[in-house]
């Protein structure tokens, strides 16, 4: 016969697991913060507070009384949070960096992803690790998105400059688009330069020769 759930020790443990983990996020990058918050909410965490990087951070963190503080490594305010390791008048509940300091793989993954977490002393590893894993994966996802965006922007800029150079050559030499493109490509090969560099040179020269 199955034991009744909700009574005695089993019930107490279940109740404890229900208690929400309050998470504070300190991240000036609003897009990244949104991506992180979305991930945490999807995982069932709905007690999330965002604190901005600036003045009075420590006081505000203490007032919120979080279980976990997630901070991006680009934030100078990490040093502000370092005060939380020692109990004082200002910091009644001390924190630790990661629940398990021997988990260097976890810490390394976090630093590599650009995120750090502070965890209130005593919080159990099982509760924290999934949160940290989520932070690492979301931070990495953001970094990839950012890279893709930069690549796309740069490709777009290159295409624009090549288009301009083609137009200049077409006008100046009375040739068609394909021929103009061929000239640019040949010059790039001869000079061992990128097509966009040659295109930029054409555009710059045209400006100067106006």
């Amino acid at each position, binding site marked *: 016969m199955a034991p009744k759930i909700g009574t005695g020790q089993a019930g107490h443990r279940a109740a404890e697991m229900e208690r929400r983990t309050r998470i504070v996020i300190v991240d000036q990058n609003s897009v990244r913060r949104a991506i992180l918050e979305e991930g945490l909410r999807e995982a069932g965490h709905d007690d999330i507070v965002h604190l901005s990087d600036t003045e009075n951070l420590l006081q505000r963190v203490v007032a919120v009384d979080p279980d976990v503080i997630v901070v991006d490594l680009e934030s100078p305010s990490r*040093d502000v949070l370092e*005060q939380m*390791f020692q109990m004082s008048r200002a910091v009644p509940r001390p924190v630790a960096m990661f629940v398990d300091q021997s988990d260097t793989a976890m810490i390394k993954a976090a630093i590599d992803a650009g995120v750090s977490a502070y965890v209130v002393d005593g919080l159990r590893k099982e509760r924290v690790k999934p949160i940290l894993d989520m932070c690492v994966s979301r931070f990495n996802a953001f970094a990839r998105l950012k890279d893709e965006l930069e690549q796309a922007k740069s490709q777009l800029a290159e295409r624009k400059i090549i288009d301009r150079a083609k137009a200049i050559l077409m006008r100046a030499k009375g040739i068609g688009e394909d021929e103009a493109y061929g000239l640019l490509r040949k010059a790039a090969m001869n000079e061992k330069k990128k097509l966009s560099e040659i295109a930029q040179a054409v555009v710059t020269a045209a400006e100067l020769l106006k």
Partner: protein
Amino acid sequence: MTRTVRVGFIPLMDAALLVVAQREGFAEEEGLALDLVRDVSWANLRDKLALGFLDAAHMLAPAAVAASLGLGQLKVPLLAPVALNLNGNAITVSLALQEALAEAATGDLADPVVTAAALKLVVDRRKAAGREQPTFGHVFPFSSHHYQLRAWMRAGGVDPDRDVNLVVLPPPYMARSLASGLIDGFCVGAPWNSLAVAEGHGRILHTGTDIVDPCVEKVLAVRLGLDANEPDTVERLARAVAASAHWAADPVNLAQLSAILAAEDAVGLPATLARAILTGELRTGTGTRVGPHYLRLSPDALPPWPDYADWIMRQMVEAGQLPRIGDSLASARAVFALERYVKATGEILEAGPARPRGIGG
């Protein structure tokens, strides 16, 4: 064979010797390619160094000790084969506090005991009027900046834990926090005090040397493991820093040094301001102080004396960061790798370190 060394630093004047080592080729002469990486927090430098993302780092000497003792954080044994400077801090206060201190002071404002006593009066008056306690910022719990503030305050009977709020505040936010009234003063390294004064938000009340002179400040820290596995690399780093110090100490190079540090990817400040700081000419907001020992980047500032650990640990105990000195002293002293420095540079150290003088000594 060139060994690439990743070295993290915070954009401060006392990172000078690292920047010089790269820009002027002293690292290259030692067969090292210095990859200088700018960062924004001391916590980052500590963690990245601990985990191998950095080979070496610009570091607050007390933070190097704290990391080695496992105080507050990731325990990682560090070693400092060379110091990067001595001194360089200042206590800057708001215009309002400067006026209040001047009014309450009985004596010369240049005397830190006088200003500390004046601070006590200001503290008492605010308390009587039901106003908030004065708040002072500094850079990191384990820093000479924090300890200098405490020593200064204690000299006037101000209890640093009960009478004021001491908080960590990132230097880029300090001047504006002073202007907005969020804080009443701060202790930070160059160039932040001069910048606050130049912006019209602060008055330099004291240099760190008014409190304790000389004061250990930054070191170049490496992991114990690197020193064990590659002592040659560590020695080459120390020699590169020493060569930089000799170059920087020559007045003929002052303009070039100022220009190097002025660069956006180095410290990033007007070259004229850099030059003034380097020559110890400080505009305080109420005048100009000249003190050549304001920031010491010279060769005699480099030996990593184990005695520095003694001072640091006394401060830690006073600050309530450590219950007592006890057995940890040996580990703390071991952070300062004087033997490695002597082996690297061949320097003959005749005298020991100068005993720190002052109310914070």
